[in-house]
């Protein structure tokens, strides 16, 4: 899904909310931001590779091309899904707003 909504500094308030609880009930304002960043088409989309199931997750990225291996960032390893969510949110926030989240 390509969303129309543009994330901006006006959305700053939702960052703290997201970091407190990346997965679960969210305010409408946070959900709107998440619809943008999580709705990215498959090209260069971040995913989590279960390098040690339920223990360790490694950042991955889809290519958007069928059959092409998922890119793996071996130096981006997380001990929890929530930590991974926060890091990827930060990266996407920066991408969308051009600022540091």
């Amino acid at each position: 899904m390509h969303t129309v909504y543009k994330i901006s500094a006006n959305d700053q308030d939702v960052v703290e909310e997201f970091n407190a609880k990346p997965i679960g009930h969210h305010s409408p304002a946070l959900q709107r931001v998440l619809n943008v960043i999580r709705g990215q088409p498959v090209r260069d989309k971040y995913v989590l590779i279960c390098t040690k199931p339920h223990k360790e997750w490694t950042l991955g990225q889809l290519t958007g091309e069928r059959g092409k291996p998922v890119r793996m960032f071996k130096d981006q390893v997380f001990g929890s899904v929530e930590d991974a969510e926060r890091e990827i949110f930060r990266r996407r926030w920066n991408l969308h707003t051009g600022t540091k989240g």
Partner: protein
Amino acid sequence: MKITGYADKISARPGETLQFMVNCERPRYRADIVRLVCGDLNPEGPGIREQVVPTPANKSYKGRAQTIESGSYVLIPNSPMLQDLKSFTVQAMLWPTMPDKGTQAIVSKWQERRRSGFALVIQAGRLALQLGDGKGNVEVVSTNKQLLARQWYFVAASYDAETRRGTLYQEPQTDYPTVSDAGRVRKKTQLERVGSNQSALMFGALRTGSGRGKLDQKFNGKIDSPRLANRVLERADMERLKSGVPAHLQQSVVGTWDFSRDISSIRVTDVSPNRLHGETVNMPARGMKGYNWSGESMDWKQAPEQYGAIHFHDDDVYDAGWEVDFSLTVPANLKSGLYAARLRSGSEEDYIPFVVKPAKGKEKKLAFLLPTASYMAYANEHMATNAGMMELLSGRLAPFDKNSLFLNEHREYGGSCYDSHSDGSGVCYSSRLRPILNMRPKHISALGGDGSSLWQFNADTHITDWLEAQGFDFDVITDEDLHYEGLALLKPYQVILSGTHPEYHSLQMWDAMKAYQNQGGRLMYMGANGWYWRVAFHPDCPGLMEVRRNEGGIRTWAAEPGEYYHSFTGEYGGLWRNQGRAPQVMLGTGFSAQGFDISAPYRRLPGSFQARAAFVFEGIGKDEVIGDFGLIGGGAAGLEIDRADERLGTPPHTLVLATSQGGHTDIYLVVCEELLVTTPGLGGTENELVRADMVFYETPSGGAVWSSSSIAWAGSLSHNNYDNNVSRITHNVLERFLNPEPFVR
């Protein structure tokens, strides 16, 4: 994954033999037959539980690589008539879907080693005739006019052995002013002759050698009415051949193939006097509307002459066709259950699951109906890699385990009925004669909710785990058994337990379950979004199922208008709901909302305090919150959830016992078949339809139905060492259902 495999059957009774086909890229591997109890790797849960069963099959085997050749085509065996062609005309109606995807053979009679024969192809997006003299020389004549995708064309080529002239016709059936996609080319070739060969005639591909992996020039799109003649035909005669063989062409025609014959089969019929019949390979789609479809008939049975197209895909696959590596004759004393051949080589591992059914007459009182039709519909799904929606649906990053990574890279393992082919058309057939790497213990699925993240097969091991932990004696039977054996399969049982997501049912399966209910059988619906899609099994080919995604319902692709009837049976496809059989008719509840992030608890409703339902809530407090815990999204109500609705068939005496209404996130949205006018407020925090309704009702002849109406339910069973109210309710219901005392006399 360096080791993968599949079995020839999904289930077997004692004394019957299963064959296992293994691809192993390592020198040796070890196979062990294991009884599967729980396949959830989550350390918060019961953990992996499996027991090795000693059998003669348990030993070390030599490994060998086995590969899959995907891509569908029609094969017409070679014959003197085909082999002796000097001059020829080849023609067809064509609907290419990816004209720019490399060279694609429409009709080929080709021998690669000597470059001998001819092929009508799409090359560089244009119609072309590829000729080989059998001495290594190849010449290609092209129309040099770009074909448009998803437009019908008349295409033809002829070759005159005397004049060495090749002629090509590329005629669009729709004219678009300013678009130049028509072409007619006549060209004298340099080749001395077109070489003969003993290769088969093929539609939709070309073979560059005899071994697997030599299938080439795979075509994407539809071919309709291919014809072959043994001389150069005038354009007017080509036109006449579209609809039959006039007398003056009888000597000239080699074959006129009519794909509208035997649509339900793999047979391909040549209606010319030469009868050069063949068959389809790798299940291209049939019952597809042809170039002449008028829109007046929606059913291929009513107007077969308008359904003479076959849709070929370069990623179609039916039977991987691997060599057998070992077999297992099910020991007489092996109790019914869920099993697998566990394959290990160093750190590499795969499981080939199968079901052992009870010996006839030795059935227990309880059967777990493993929803294998639904496993087939989801077989090797690529939703997280093919479509960007997964993260939105699940409200979290998509997890990829080794199986998902492998499937992303190995497209030749074929897609699921949730995927689209490489040309964007929906996958309407799915086979189990290939490794199904998401039907595995230990598999983690992006659809499975926060926590254990299990979906379908592996989620269903939460049920087998609970049954074992609670000490219930049970048999396991499968959807496919139900399809072929009907009511007789269910009759011995007091209680049938469903899986977490029994979504796909054939008419035979539906009728058998209804008959079972009507004669007093008891059904515990342990999941949600069940009895939703109608499916068909192939009449001749084993392990093959069809889904047409018609009209409405949550679906990742939509069947094209006019293609709503199953090719396997001629039955109308789509949702059972649109055929007067909403899930509420079978279960009291039916699909109402979905979301894949976190789950919610249930709260009791007045129905739960009625005397008729007292047994369900024995030991449960009046205000007790039910299932605010669990491995699937942290709650018992979640992922896909069903509601009671009398207008859709919930029996009027149904007791709605509990509901999760109001507890869901806004990731949960009302299903699209409920949407006539779209309005704001479709999410879980606002919409009343976003809920799982737990229900109970009595059926004729003393039976009853209890429905959890949630896919997540089973993920809560093991919480607190199985001592929790989800486990207790399930236990209460199962104990009572196993008691033959009729509910209503």
